[in-house]
């Protein structure tokens, strides 16, 4: 599957997939869609990315934080140094000066299993809102007012978001496990 065309196309399409999956998640309350299908679409983005570019590249581009470290210049204070670090990290391509070290943190070390647990926790918490307010478990509460694209906010949306994370975590867990072998 590793062709240049596929790899290039998928690098551009993955963010589109993700944005679309979030859109599907939000429109799910009154239209076809929702957390489950949104999570599946979101995970398809990563599955294609893995197919096209390999697990390591996917982990590097979506599940890691990279930070360029520089020495503090003697005449710079702490705040000025922090601002300089921020500026240098925001546009890394234009750097002439070599960074002192590159700090790379892989979020994948926090396995997809944790993503599943967070999803479950969010879903349960959305149900607990009703319980705490003295109504039966999972009673829906809505925030007043509508936001243009998203629609209204409330506990059902929170539940859907939990399902989204759960499905995403589960598919990622399966794909990473299979692609390791």
């Amino acid at each position, binding site marked *: 599957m590793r062709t240049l065309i596929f790899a290039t196309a998928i690098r551009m399409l993955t963010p589109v997939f993700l944005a679309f999956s979030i859109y599907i998640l939000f429109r799910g309350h009154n239209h076809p869609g929702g957390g489950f299908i949104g999570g599946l679409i979101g995970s398809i983005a990563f599955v294609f990315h893995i197919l096209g570019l390999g697990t390591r590249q996917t982990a590097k581009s979506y599940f890691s934080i990279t930070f360029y470290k520089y020495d503090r210049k003697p005449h710079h204070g702490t705040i000025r140094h922090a601002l300089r670090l921020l500026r240098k990290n925001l546009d890394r391509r234009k750097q002439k000066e070599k960074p002192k070290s590159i700090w790379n943190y892989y979020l994948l070390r926090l*396995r997809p*299993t*944790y993503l*599943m*647990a967070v999803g*479950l*926790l969010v879903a*349960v918490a959305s*149900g*607990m809102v*009703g*319980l705490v307010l*003295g*109504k*039966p*478990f*999972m*009673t*829906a509460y809505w925030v007043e007012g509508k936001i243009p694209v998203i629609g209204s906010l409330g506990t059902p949306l929170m539940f859907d978001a939990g399902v989204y994370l759960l499905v995403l975590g589960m598919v990622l867990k399966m794909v990473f496990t299979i692609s390791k072998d």
Partner: protein
Amino acid sequence: MPANQLLVIPLLLPLLGAIISVFLWNSIRWQAVVVAVVQLAFISVSVIMLQQVLQAGILTTQVGNWPAPFGISLVTDVFSSLLLLTTSIAGLGVFMFSHTALDQSRKHFGYYPLFLLLQMGVSGVCLTGDIFNLYVWFEVLLICCFALIALGSRKSQLEGALKYLTINFVASGLLLSGIGVVYSLYGALNLAELARIVRSDHPNLDLLLVPGIFFLTGFGIKAAIFPLFFWLPASYHAPPISISAFVAGIISKIGMYTMLRLYTLIFSIELEAAQPLLLLLSGLTMAIGVVGAAAQVDFRKILSFHVISQIGYMLMGLAIYTPLAVAGSIFFIIHNMLVKTNLFLVSGVVAHRHHSFSLLKLGGVYLRHPTLSFLFLISALSLAGLPPLSGFWGKLMLAKGGFEAGHYLLVGTSLCVSLVTLFSMTKIWNEVFWKPRPRQLKQQPVVTGKSYIMYLSIIYLLVFILLLGVSAEPVIQMAKLSADQLFNSEIYIDAVLNPERAN
């Protein structure tokens, strides 16, 4: 505590515990702490729930605040809260045992979260008042059981897990078809609503037998009733004892609970047609289970076959279908959950010390561990039903109910089966505990670790078994009360559909 909150706590506690255990994935010790806290809280919530149900009658809550026939109802009556209390007590025992006996690698691969999710499935089945949700909770049970049986992936385990999964998949398919048929016939999935429709003059009433057969076959597989039992001894002996004790002790009775619930609430109308079949099946289940056990020489396999035989007793109460017999069934389920779990735990301790489950390779345990032998003896005699131990009362109620209803043949069979059970338990006693240790094994070292917690779990369960035997009266009263509630379905229907009128 208001019913709204009380009824979801048995579901939320294990779920939250499982989520927290996943976050503590790398630290087994903290996971164990979480599980211990959840178990203790679970027991106390079950006690509170039982107390409230005894005082105030059936409790209901509508999840999502949608009214009853449309939303998802959670219902608890005396029967389900008794069962929840028993499972929570047995759960703590199994947890104490697994804390010391289970190997580290299985704990590292998520034994504790799976255990908690399994408990959530059990409480879900007990509490749900909706037939589709019942199916979903059974799926939760199926997935967790499958994962637990396969955990560690030894060859025999995978074989057992595969058998378990395949046959239970078929059963789930049958259940789902049955639910589909019910919905297309009556347009309702809520148990109370279905019970109401079945008791009115609905034009489709003649077809009730069709879903009835689907459910009988589906739950027959899940509960291991006579012609469909073969998967149970083939898979329950495979995993380590900490897992098979819970699965064999608790999960196999959950199918029986659902049959009692559904057949008293919905299919009782058609029971005249099904009764001869149920009588025949219960007699055959008892007899075949115990005969199968007599042919085995493996500690766990003997116990697994006895699980089947005892399912026959529980079915007997349903087949006779008088309040006394159903109360006997309920008492028997409670007794059997505790005793069977305890016997599995004893076999686990023996195997931990002597490295084997085979009767041929064991012997002389009495000399080395007199206390353990004594603990086994009480549980085994209780299983066989010697007075004044707990098994006796259940069998007495069943036999009395059977005589009153005039099913002499079935009662005769059940008494003969009891005798064979006693024989089978004596066989284990002779081979494992009494006979001298086989000569070629004498050199093998006996593990003598400090595992007081293992003994503690057995003694802890034994206390409840003895209590159940010596002061059986309150439990028998509660069993009769729950049988009354099962027989007067109007109470259940009113409590769910018209909560204002019921109060």
